């Protein structure tokens, strides 16, 4: 038992029964290892690219494009970071702490952009706003051919599109953090003389830090891993070099080496953020239930509505209208009864993967809570790295792992005289679900871990000392308090899996086509307008979990509030 855990104030019980605590810590550490191992295997496969030195390609990249790519990537990351922080936090604060016209609608509607794949939004944006698009064309006929319009295929353009697609990660996580913030703390701040702004910046915001950081790191990891969106803008980032090495120079090894650098960068960043957070604790006195909403009046109220409305329109409504328009043109040609199967496959995969991934993430989050040693910490950090890799690279890493296991299993079975023709694991749904787990563990871990951090350890301890069995504590204490986090995780993973393309393409069983596969088929040869139909179907299917979340979260806040009231 480290000094840190003791001083971090887990109550008196632990000092009286250190050996019991130690056993629990050990047990959780053991749980975290296999989960991290699942993620680690494909990562190791990618790192093994270093076994073959590719000095020629490195020299070439270093002499030509690498410096530009690194600068581009950093600019993109900074732009996206400020953008998603600003949009995500301000919108979450408005919809969860204030009252203004349309607030109830925007509360859930602002999550909807999640259902749009980033590259689809990018394509729609360029289609509408670029020089040859209808908007600029119309402006030129009105105001003359030299009418000025900001460059759309530019650094600014990529950042805007990425921010509009990725802000929901911050929005959702900050929202559930704000929603579970207790009235007591805020009242105390106000009584001590802080104004509403000071309360926001000095109490509300710092208390929500784990959630906001988790959301932002998801957005940034996705930015780092993105290839589709930047490719549409022809904006070269680090992933450009990875794909150039692989597809252009036919060198998967060099691509793995580049990808592993990306991973190292993310691992170091995540690790230092957790170090910076240090011993700060975010659990909270939740006495007093939900704080009263700040009622916005007059001009402020309409400004809030205008702000939320603009973001909603640009991130979701306008793109959706454009997609609907395109779909309408081809609906008679392309819509057939296969779409039912496609939707069913997509939703089944999304929900099953979310289920598996959330169990994995919860185990990992509990392990981190109860066993705060270096091994468990490293295990949790590793467990969340899969999200930072470009999809295709990770998909190949996973595929190589599975085929490796298959080849091993087959040689074992052959030893027993059983000859199995063809792969065992590869090409099964189970393998695909594991792949999703590896890729999206971070997405589920973020919201769950940040809600777990907000639960005071005295609560479950009190329950235990009153004689509740662990399962009971889980069901009656943890699950209700974690439910906003779990629901966010559920939604994020379901929608992300539904949008996921590279792993689905590479590992799906024969005939298990999804909507994302359909989008790929259309876009791979540039038929973007025809991709509108599967894209819009994907958005509609993605609405299902959002609606589910909205219904459940309004219920669960009541449950959580009543649990708190009985404390």
């Amino acid at each position, binding site marked *: 038992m480290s000094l840190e855990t003791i001083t971090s104030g887990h109550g008196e019980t632990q000092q009286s029964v250190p050996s019991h605590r130690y056993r629990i810590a050990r047990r959780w550490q053991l749980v975290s290892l296999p989960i991290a191992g699942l993620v680690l295997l494909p990562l190791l496969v990618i790192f093994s690219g270093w076994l073959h030195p590719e000095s020629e390609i490195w020299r070439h990249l270093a002499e*030509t494009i690498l410096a530009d790519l690194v600068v581009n990537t950093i600019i993109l990351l900074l732009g996206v970071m400020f953008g998603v922080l600003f949009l995500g936090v301000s919108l979450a604060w408005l919809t969860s702490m204030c009252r203004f016209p349309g607030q109830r609608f925007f509360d859930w509607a602002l999550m909807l952009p999640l259902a749009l794949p980033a590259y689809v939004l990018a394509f729609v944006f360029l289609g509408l706003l670029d020089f040859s698009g209808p908007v600029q064309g119309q402006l030129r006929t009105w105001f003359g051919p030299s009418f000025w319009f900001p460059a759309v295929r530019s650094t600014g353009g990529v950042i805007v599109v990425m921010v509009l697609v990725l802000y929901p990660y911050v929005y959702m996580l900050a929202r559930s953090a704000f929603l579970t913030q207790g009235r007591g703390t805020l009242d105390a701040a106000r009584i001590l003389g802080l104004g509403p702004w000071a309360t926001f910046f000095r109490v509300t915001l710092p208390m929500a830090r784990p959630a906001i950081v988790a959301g932002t790191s998801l957005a940034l990891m996705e930015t780092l891993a993105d290839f589709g969106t930047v490719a549409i803008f022809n904006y070269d980032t680090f992933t450009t070099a990875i794909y150039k090495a692989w597809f252009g*120079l036919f060198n998967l090894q060099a691509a793995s080496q580049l990808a592993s650098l990306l991973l190292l960068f993310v691992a170091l960043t995540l690790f230092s953020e957790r170090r910076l957070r240090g011993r700060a604790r975010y659990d909270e006195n939740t006495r007093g239930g939900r704080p009263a909403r700040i009622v916005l009046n007059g001009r402020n109220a309409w400004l809030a509505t205008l702000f939320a409305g603009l973001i909603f329109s640009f991130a979701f409504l306008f793109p959706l209208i454009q997609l609907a328009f395109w779909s309408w043109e081809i609906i008679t040609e392309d819509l057939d009864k296969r779409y039912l199967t496609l939707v069913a496959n997509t939703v089944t995969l999304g929900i099953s993967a979310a289920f598996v991934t959330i169990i994995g993430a919860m185990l990992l989050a509990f392990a981190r809570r109860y066993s705060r040693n270096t091994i468990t910490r490293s295990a949790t950090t590793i467990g969340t790295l899969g999200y930072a890799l470009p999809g*295709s690279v990770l998909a190949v890493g996973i595929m*190589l792992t599975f*085929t*490796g296991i298959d080849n091993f299993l087959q040689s074992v079975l052959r030893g027993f005289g059983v000859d199995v023709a063809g*792969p065992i694991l590869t090409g099964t*749904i189970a393998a695909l*679900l594991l792949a999703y787990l590896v890729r999206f563990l971070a997405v589920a871990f973020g919201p769950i871990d940040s809600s777990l951090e907000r639960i005071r350890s005295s609560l479950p301890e009190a329950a235990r000392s009153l004689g509740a069995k662990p399962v009971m504590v889980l069901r009656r204490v943890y699950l209700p308090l974690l439910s906003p986090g779990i629901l966010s995780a559920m939604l994020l993973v379901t929608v992300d899996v539904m949008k996921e393309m590279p792993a689905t393409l590479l590992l*799906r069983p024969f005939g298990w086509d999804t909507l994302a596969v359909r989008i790929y088929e259309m876009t791979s040869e540039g038929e973007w307008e025809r991709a509108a139909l599967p894209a819009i179907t994907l958005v509609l299917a993605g609405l299902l979990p959002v609606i589910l979340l909205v219904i459940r979260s309004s219920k669960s806040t009541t449950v959580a509030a009543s649990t708190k009231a009985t404390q």
Partner: protein
Amino acid sequence: MSKLKFVTLLVISTTFVIPAVQAADEIVVYSARKEHLIKPLFDAYTDKTGVNIRYVTDKAGPLLARLKAEGSNTPADILMTVDAGNLWQAAQLGVLDSIDSAILQQNIPASLRDPENRWFGLSVRARTIVYSTERVKEGELSTYEALADPAWKGRLCLRTSKKVYNQSLVAMMISRLGEQKTSNVVSGWVANLAVPPFSNDTRTMQAIISGQCDVAIVNTYYFGRLLKKNPDIKLSLFWPNQKDSGVHVNISGAGVTTYAKHREQAIMLLEWLSSEEAQGLFASLNMEYPANPAVANDAVVAAWGDFKADDTNVAKAGELQKQAVMLMDRSGYR
């Protein structure tokens, strides 16, 4: 908790792990050519012969990595992909096997198949010059190289060098003109660009229509698609290099995998795909050109006129692709 996890995994594994059983009368295809361009052909073949065809689609890179990793365990009998570079790379990796078929050799011209018969082109795609009929006179155009001339300053649009079509074009130019001359041409192109390179051919042509530039290099079927949607566009195709090498062509094609479980069936399918019966449909589904010279062009495509195509073996595009990519990086062609 771990018990819960165990039970969950158990339930999932029993419901979801469906063993991949293979029937005897069945061919498995890994395809980087998209589904709606191959399915009609596969359906026709199944109707005709009763042989079932199963396929997965993906990008060429991941499919190749998968074939290589699966080794002798692979369920795939055929690898089908676009671009000669990918087929060349597949042959290099040893995942395609040489096949001895008189029919394929007769149907597919020598420049469109592997010299060692590991892959065969099934459709031809021409990458040519497209120009604005309002601002360019046909007489101004001659070759790909001439677009590097300062006369085109601020008038040229290009698609990104990251697209394999441009990598093949430059690779073939290297084989024809050598590294130094090609490098001058590419630098000249970059200097003439009106706007930064586009991410696809359609956008590139729309830039000409909207007046951003006057001339570009595109695959003909993208032009065909645009024309189909709007027959009044002020664009026209130009066939360059007619006095020397001819128009740059690439292929989509296929080969039989090294560890094919249904090798004979797979060869028969490829033979059928190269036949006059299938070739018309194979090409016209995407407004491409048939690889089999005995098959007439689709009426839409024929209307764009005849041209002399580059008859250097397309395998060269794969061989020199790396060199081409590096050359374009050095020339600042993004």
